[in-house]
């Protein structure tokens, strides 16, 4: 039963065959999934056009008091410099959704490829890759951040890969653990015996069988990236003022907490709403009906 250091529903669910797919996809998502999906959609729209819906200029210091409570003029109150939080959250959607999503996808893809390759190719390749990434995990992200700012200066183009690099090893570990067990199964042997290349085996034979765990992990990783993003921005690597991603919004307004200022609560809520819905969507896509495996 070595296939038990696989985490989630490995052989369980996999994307339906292309032809029937279109018809079959929706019924499986269910309520939670649809809800999650629509919230994500909402934030995506905001990421693109958030600016237009913003009641105020997200960066202007209105002559309002700081940390104002919720009121008609400022639905989410004002921040530590008297700026409108609603507008800033909407504007922050672009930073957060854009960067964090991009970085997470990058990390996931990187980890996926590396993990699959390690599992399928194995041998030295696997050993070296694993050790290297083990080492990377244990080098603190702050150092990474610093060195990267120092080396390339701070810009989104540096930020995204940095985040990705920091989260790649974790993803790799998971993928590899799952893939190694799939790669041992006969149907992979069949593909090898057919003379298929490693890439085909990685993507067509193994990948579909570990999509579940990978995505489940993706959901969680996204949360971490969002949070790390803010702390890197704090280091100066990342989103530059006056713009701010949601994490940074929470951070810069933390002083409002004693006054129960919505300025600190609302961005946190925004983060939660996005991350939760992403995970809801993923769960409802791949977490469920793993029980179908019963038949033999």
């Amino acid at each position, binding site marked *: 039963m070595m296939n038990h250091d696989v985490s989630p529903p490995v052989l369980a669910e996999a994307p339906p065959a292309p032809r029937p797919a279109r018809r079959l996809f929706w019924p499986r998502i269910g309520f939670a999934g649809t809800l999650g999906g629509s919230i994500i959609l909402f934030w995506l729209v905001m990421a693109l056009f958030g600016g237009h819906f913003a009641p105020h200029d997200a*960066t*202007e*210091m209105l002559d309002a008091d*700081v940390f104002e409570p919720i009121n008609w003029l400022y639905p989410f109150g004002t921040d530590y410099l008297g700026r409108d939080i609603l507008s800033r959250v909407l504007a922050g959607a672009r930073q957060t959704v854009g960067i964090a999503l991009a970085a997470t996808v990058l990390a996931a893809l990187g980890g996926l490829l590396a993990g699959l390759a390690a599992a399928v190719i194995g041998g030295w390749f696997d050993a070296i890759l694993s050790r290297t990434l083990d080492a990377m995990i244990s080098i603190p992200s702050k150092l990474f951040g610093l060195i990267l*700012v*120092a080396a390339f200066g701070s810009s989104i183009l540096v930020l995204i890969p940095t985040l990705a690099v920091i989260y790649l090893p974790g993803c790799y570990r998971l993928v590899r653990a799952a893939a190694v067990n799939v790669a041992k199964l006969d149907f992979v042997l069949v593909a090898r015996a057919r003379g298929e290349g490693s890439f085909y085996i990685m993507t067509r034979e193994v990948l579909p069988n570990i999509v579940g765990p990978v995505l489940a992990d993706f959901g969680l990783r996204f949360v971490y990236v969002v949070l790390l993003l803010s702390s890197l921005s704090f280091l100066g*690597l990342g989103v530059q003022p006056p713009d701010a991603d949601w994490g940074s919004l929470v951070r810069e307004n933390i002083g409002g907490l004693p006054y129960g200022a919505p300025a600190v609560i609302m961005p946190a809520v925004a983060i939660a709403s996005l991350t939760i819905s992403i995970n809801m969507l993923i769960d409802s896509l791949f977490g469920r009906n793993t029980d179908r495996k019963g038949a033999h």
Partner: protein
Amino acid sequence: GGLGTAFAAETPKKGGRIRVAGFSSSTADTLDPAKQALSTDYVRSTMFYNGLTSLDERMAPQLELAESIEHDGATVWTIKLRRGVQFHDGKTLTADDVVYSLNRHKDPAVGSKAKTLADQMEEIKATGPLEVTIRLTGPNADLPVILGTYHFKIVKDGTTDFTTAIGTGPFTCKEFQPGVRSIATRNGNFWKGVGPWLDEVEYFGISDNGARVNALLSGDVDLIAAIDPRSSRQVLGTDGFAIAETKWGNYTNLVMRMDQAPCNNPDFVLGMKYLFDRELMKKSVFRGFAEVANDQPLASSNRYYSPDIPQRPYDPEKAKFHLKKAGALDSTLQVVASAAAKSSVEMAVVLQQAAQKIGMKIDIKQVPADGYWSNYWMKVPVGFGNVNPRPTADILFNLFFKSDATWNESAWKDGRFDQLLAASRAETDEAKRTQMYHDMQLLIHENSGIGIPVFINNLDAHSSRLKGLRPMSSGGLMGYGFAEYVWLDT
């Protein structure tokens, strides 16, 4: 609670233990007076050591370990020491200790922060068991003040191990862990006779402002340093607690390198100075706990402050005019800010707003606090600096405005200023000297590439049980010397 309540004078009571939280602590904490970098170090050194002199509320030197100080022509100084002062280990103070303590600063290997100041002491020698003679490279009337600064505290002759502190100060060092905490217990035979009142002081740093305030309000600590202005409402809102505000002339300034484009154009510099919405900064960045400044480094509390320079207003029109003239409107300006320079990021944001209004685009580049001073400060065309007040205007000007000063932040070269500076130092007639300082301030205000929008006041918070705290223009926490004077009202 309320502002200033703590300043009422009452008769002190002996005894008690307090916990005090500074705003920073790191493994770089040191008990070596020469190496001191941060207020946390100053607090410790004033607990454990004494200087030859000390500085009072108005930064005027008062005799401490020195019994008398005489000079001729402000060049050769003779210092007589108090008799019978004992170090914590019982050894009595002699001239050798003083000579050793002062000479250390000149040795590069020590890495003293005061090396530049110490270098002007050409010769330091013991001219008697309790007499030290110092010959300066040139006349300097301010030597007594310099000797009152934190780095020139007196240590025992030959001390090289600073894992603990053997000084003559009001407290003895019971425990010291860099970056963790230090515990000071009352020095039974403190030479002054009066004070200190407290039995024990535990001192450590909490770098997170919120945590610091919460620690105070939850009663875990009795006194905290340098709180964020935004937390003032929270502290004042809770009874049993008070805030001590110190006007001390610390400022965060816009640094425009006049040796680089675009700042090499006077119009640009002037335009930027007009672009400061000083009132808004005071209001929204510092919640009113600041003092509008006038692009020159001396605060109104300073005894050489020049009141008759007209205040430069926030004037978008004038700004636009000059910046247009400098051709800065149609190009994007990059301003570097960092947490290292207090509140510079917020100030930059305010500036950015103002610029936007006149159609000028400013990009803020926020950079890590780590290595800011070595990598960005004075290197980028437009950035921020943060300057603590110096004991004397002379030191301040010498450090930051003299044409050949290492930290001539804006690379501002003005022969007339330099002459005035040199003259003022030798000048012993107070009236003449004052006038010279006023002129120098005007020059800075007019021509230098330094924009100083506000002076930032320091806010300490404490429980009302803690009495005897007084503001000192040399810095927060009574110029870091609170330990000797405060007492607990039980």
